[in-house]
């Protein structure tokens, strides 16, 4: 729309001005064929040289530059991708190692604990056994002593009784009957004397 108005203006001006300056100049210089050949010649020459230089020298260089940049950028992207991948792999490896070593440490710790516990248990058991044995031994000894003591006491009692009887009565009493009495006594009252 604006363009149309402009062109109408121009056209109007052209008509207007052409009338005014008709005497001064010969209308449009473009239609004056005086320099047409010259213009065609110089156009062909300059445009020809421009075309040849551009197509043979400059445009291939620009295209090569563009290609090179493209491939370079592509390469860089690929390299970055590769590095990223390798670093990710390394990170994974590292994490694996850490988790593995953690597990190992845990295992070692557990094993060590079990070992120590086992050892402690074993030592405790052996110690318990020793203690038990010793206690048993001592008990046996005590029992033995106890038994021996009652018998000895009985014997002493029998002998003493027979001696006493000889002195008191003057006659010898059968030892076996005395021992029967003593045994009976010790059985009835033994607990009183050698009670546990």
């Amino acid at each position: 729309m604006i363009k149309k108005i402009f062109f109408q203006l121009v056209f109007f001006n052209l008509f207007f001005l052409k009338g005014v300056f008709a005497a001064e100049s010969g209308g449009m210089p473009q239609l004056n064929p005086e320099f047409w050949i010259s213009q065609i010649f110089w156009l062909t020459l300059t445009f020809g040289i421009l075309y040849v230089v551009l197509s043979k020298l400059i445009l291939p260089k620009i295209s090569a530059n563009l290609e090179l940049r493209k491939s370079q950028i592509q390469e860089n992207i690929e390299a970055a991708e590769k590095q990223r991948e390798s670093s990710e792999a390394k990170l994974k490896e590292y994490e694996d190692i850490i988790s593995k070593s953690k597990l190992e440490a845990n295992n070692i710790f557990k094993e060590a604990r079990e070992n120590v516990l086992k050892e402690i248990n074993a030592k405790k058991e052996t110690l318990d056994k020793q203690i038990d044995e010793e206690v048993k031994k001592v008990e046996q000894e005590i029992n033995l002593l106890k038994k021996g003591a009652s018998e000895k006491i009985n014997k002493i009692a029998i002998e003493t009784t027979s001696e006493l009887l000889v002195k008191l009565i003057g006659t010898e009493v059968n030892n076996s009957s005395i021992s029967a009495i003593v045994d009976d006594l010790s059985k009835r009252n033994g607990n009183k004397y050698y009670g546990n």
Partner: protein
Amino acid sequence: MAANPMTQFEVYRIGPEIKVGAFDISFTNASLFMVVSSLAILIIFNLGSKKNSLLPSKIQLLAELSYTFVSKMISDTAGSKAKPYFSFIFSLFMFVLFCNMFGMIPYTFTVTSHIIVTFVLAAFIFIGVTIIGFIKHGLGYLKLFVPSGVPIVLLPLIVVIEIISYLSRPISLSVRLFANMMAGHTMMKVFGGFVISLGVVGGWLPLSFSVALTGLEILVAFLQAYVFAILTCIYLNDALNLHH
């Protein structure tokens, strides 16, 4: 005087008259700006392709962005078959763009505001595209003028219209660029003249218009170069991928 908006399009000799046979090929201001534009393109793109750093410099970025821009334009409109013609279309686009842009500098000459220049370019494209079409498809290229799915009754008319539209391609292509450039520059000159004639009191309005027009003209300069290149691609597409 300079008040005539058409004097800016006048071609004049710079230096001596050079004649080859009956032809005058003198170096003119038009030739000067063709050389300047070409040199500017070559210098910029040479600097932009000299060394390749992974992080491109500004000029390298400019060159590479232009390269990818044109390359994308070609592959979008003409497909992958048009790859061999990339350098031609790139040169064409850059040449037209730089000529248009140099024309935007005050007191310069706009090469593309001359019908003969744009017509030579358009005619070269037209002939080249036609030759490519006949090489690729032989006489089958004539099928371009016979669209499929048209009722047989209408066919003679359609074929005539297609042929006319095909033949008018160089004219429309050249006149589009030429007229746009000429109209824009004339208009700017006219408004510039108004600034002078209206003076300090009333000159501010046309001056602001002139400023706005300069922006518009820079846009048009780019756009017309783009249109010129993209139409070339479309014509090339017709010649390379014949499907109608």
